[in-house]
């Protein structure tokens, strides 16, 4: 199997690979990263799997749109983020969300929120609180800390200016700190 650089740029696209080989290599490099990033948005495993598949199909279809201004990783993440946001905005998602909430409200009667929190470890509580953050803070926190991207890369993915990203990071951290202190 041909080896491709982990942070490939334009050269990644000009290695003489067939389209299918190219797609397979992209998937090998980013499949778990993409599916897990999708999960942080939709918080549903099945949905994340479907969205990750869509991401790679999109990568394949829009391969020619890739510009060497950013890395392949940033490009793939940007497609993932956009697709997840499109899904979250869609009417179908809103419908599912209502059904989901109804189901959860019935289940939650068995265990009080206090008991649930006590039973969780600190790490789980942190992960929980991160995933409960409002989307605009959550995505920045997760891209920065979980995906370990730089502020510059995040600004490219989210199409926001770097100072905006820094502000969102700061506010997200503050919000998280308050929530964790409250939970103790």
């Amino acid at each position, binding site marked *: 199997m041909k080896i491709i650089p982990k942070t490939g740029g334009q050269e990644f696209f000009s290695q003489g690979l067939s*389209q*299918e080989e190219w*797609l*397979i290599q992209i*998937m090998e490099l980013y*499949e*778990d990263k*993409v*599916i*897990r990033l999708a*999960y942080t948005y939709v918080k549903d*495993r099945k949905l*994340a*799997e479907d969205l*990750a*598949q869509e991401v*790679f*199909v999109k990568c*394949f*279809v829009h391969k020619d749109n890739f510009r060497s201004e950013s890395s392949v990783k940033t490009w793939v993440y940007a497609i993932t983020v956009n697709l997840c946001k499109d899904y979250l905005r869609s009417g179908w998602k809103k419908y599912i969300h209502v059904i989901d909430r109804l189901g959860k409200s019935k289940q939650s009667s068995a265990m009080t929120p206090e008991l649930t929190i006590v039973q969780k470890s600190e*790490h*789980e509580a*942190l*992960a929980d609180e*991160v995933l409960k953050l409002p989307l605009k803070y959550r995505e920045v*926190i*997760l891209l920065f*800390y*979980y995906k*370990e991207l730089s502020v510059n890369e995040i600004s490219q993915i989210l199409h926001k200016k770097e100072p905006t990203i820094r502000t969102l990071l700061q506010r997200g*951290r503050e919000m*998280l700190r308050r929530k*964790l202190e409250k939970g103790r």
Partner: protein
Amino acid sequence: MEDPLKQLPEILNNGRMKNISFKEEHRQKVLQKTRELNRPPAPKSWLYHWFHQSLSLALGVAFIFIFIQFAQSTPPKADEQKDAVQMVKIPYANQAILTKARHDMRNYHDVTGIDAYQKGDTLTVHIIFPDNLSRDDQIDLTKSYLKEVSHLTMNEPYEAQDYLGALWNYVNVKVYTAGSTDDDMLAARLQVEFGFDSLGSIDKKEGILKWERISDNNQHLKGNVQ
């Protein structure tokens, strides 16, 4: 103190993300989708071609039929079109005079309907009287109407008329008798029991409307209205 968020990759990857991975079946699905995208479209069945061609033919025939129908429909005659344009373009002052005269005749005299229109500089008036009115009364009422029009025309300042079109130089009056009706438009369809035409001229400077009966040979009358 270390930022707990720095442990986030470890926490998530070993925690809730542990079982979330892209499996071989997902990979195959992606490859399947991309192969479908690249596949050339399947050839259409003969039924599709037959239906498509029949539909095209039917639409073509329908279009030609409509086009022929449209081409065959005769355009309105030029004269009729010109008349219609002239009738619509009655100058404002003249229209006001006609409206006022009609209003007065309906309110102060026993007249069923008045239909007046202008063609060029000639005013044509159709007056419909109730059928119980004597002929002399009809003639008197016709004079009243002409007098009304005359007075209104004379009172209109001519300087103001410059841009409103020419006032009438001649007045043609056709008088019909008919049963009581409020609908002026019926005048065109009414049977003429007897009628008389008057041809008149308005002397703008002297303020006189001269008129002459040109039909109804039994009484060839002339008159002035001042």
